[in-house]
């Protein structure tokens, strides 16, 4: 046995490991789901993606949500006024375009269509633009998308006020679209003639980011 030429099992192990890892880029959807569902997945499986050096800080005393643009009744809401609007809640999955998913997120907030009705959009308005307090993050939806019944301005997540890293005090929730459409730290909403490319869309992402039907996925 000593005299036998040793087999190069190590080389094989290396090649199999690399090939297995690379192939997971194609077959790994189930792995992605499994990893997201791990009970010890940090932060409940969320990743915190931001584009500015610091996260906006929420001060209930000075915070305002401005709703304007092509509307007949521009409105400025305090945090208390926002909370006083009719409340709705839903449990939905959150999908990120980079592959991860958080299941069964419990959102509570204001239905966006309710808020839009209050400001009376003008006939020429076909788009809704969202400006984040996290400069320079912006994004927009068509007015029809914005009026979908499950589009919320969420101020609660899983029974608690929206945490800072999730966009406190209020974020957009549009469950049928990838996370980058779900603008965090919403500070301004404008009715505009047409939707414009948002932050990620200027970098090549689809404007209509339907889950499973966009971005080449």
């Amino acid at each position, binding site marked *: 046995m000593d005299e036998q030429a*040793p*087999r*190069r*099992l*190590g*080389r094989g*192990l*290396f090649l199999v*490991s*690399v090939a297995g*890892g*690379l192939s*997971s*880029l*194609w077959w*790994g*959807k189930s*792995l*992605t789901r499994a*990893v997201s569902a791990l009970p010890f997945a*940090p*932060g409940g499986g*969320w*990743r*915190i*993606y*931001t*584009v*500015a*050096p*610091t*996260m906006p800080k929420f001060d209930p005393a000075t915070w305002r949500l401005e709703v304007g643009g092509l509307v007949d009744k521009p409105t400025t809401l305090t945090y208390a006024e926002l909370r006083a609007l009719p409340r709705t809640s839903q449990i939905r999955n959150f999908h990120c*375009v*980079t*592959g*991860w998913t958080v299941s069964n997120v419990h959102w509570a907030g204001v239905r966006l269509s309710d808020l839009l009705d209050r400001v009376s959009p003008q006939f020429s308005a076909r788009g809704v633009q969202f400006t984040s307090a996290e400069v320079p993050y912006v994004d927009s939806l068509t007015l029809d998308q914005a009026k979908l019944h499950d589009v919320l301005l969420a101020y609660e997540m899983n029974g608690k006020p929206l*945490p*800072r*890293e999730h966009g406190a005090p209020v974020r957009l929730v549009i469950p049928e679209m990838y996370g980058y459409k779900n603008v965090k730290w919403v500070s301004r909403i404008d009715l505009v003639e047409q939707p414009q490319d948002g932050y990620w869309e200027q*970098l*090549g*992402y689809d404007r209509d980011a339907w889950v499973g039907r966009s*971005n*080449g*996925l």
Partner: protein
Amino acid sequence: MTRYVHRFSRSERTFHWVNATFFLYLLATGLVLYLPRLSALVGRRPLIKDLHFWGGIGWIAALAAIALLGDTRGLWRTLRELETLDHRRFNPGQKVNAILNAAITVLFVISGLLLWLGERNTRFRLQNTVTLHDTLMYGALALLAGHLYLAVIHPATRHALRGMTRGTVSEEWARRHHPRWEVPPDTEGTAPAPTSTTDAART
């Protein structure tokens, strides 16, 4: 008097410690990007992303520089040594650890580049790149935990750490743990060449 035998060359040790340093740096910056609590605490995501990305580039560049500027032939011999899973200077477990770490490094680099490119060009965005990068991190941490335990804590094996810091291990330990290792003649002037008649039956 303890006699020492030469186990790791200067290039091997440099390679190991540079690799370890960059790994810890990338782990730290990576965890800031990965863990929501840390992300919120540290902020500055664009900066941390850059530090992480360029750290990864530096990692590969540094290892390549050592391989090219150091004892290239010696490192090549080490590589050939790792290709077989027999037990001489290294035992099969040590070889598997090194091989898996090498594979993980390659996969880290490829998936990291894909993540970086995917933010700039949607053609490079694949559904599971993030999962692969994260899973590699868990795998690498598991290997690291075992490696640290054996190298620093476990009484029977932790003497090996000396081989990676000073280059030499005691001849008695070498005979006991690696009986079929043909102990090399002293090449760095720290130990005399051992005789081949030392009892290997003590195991």
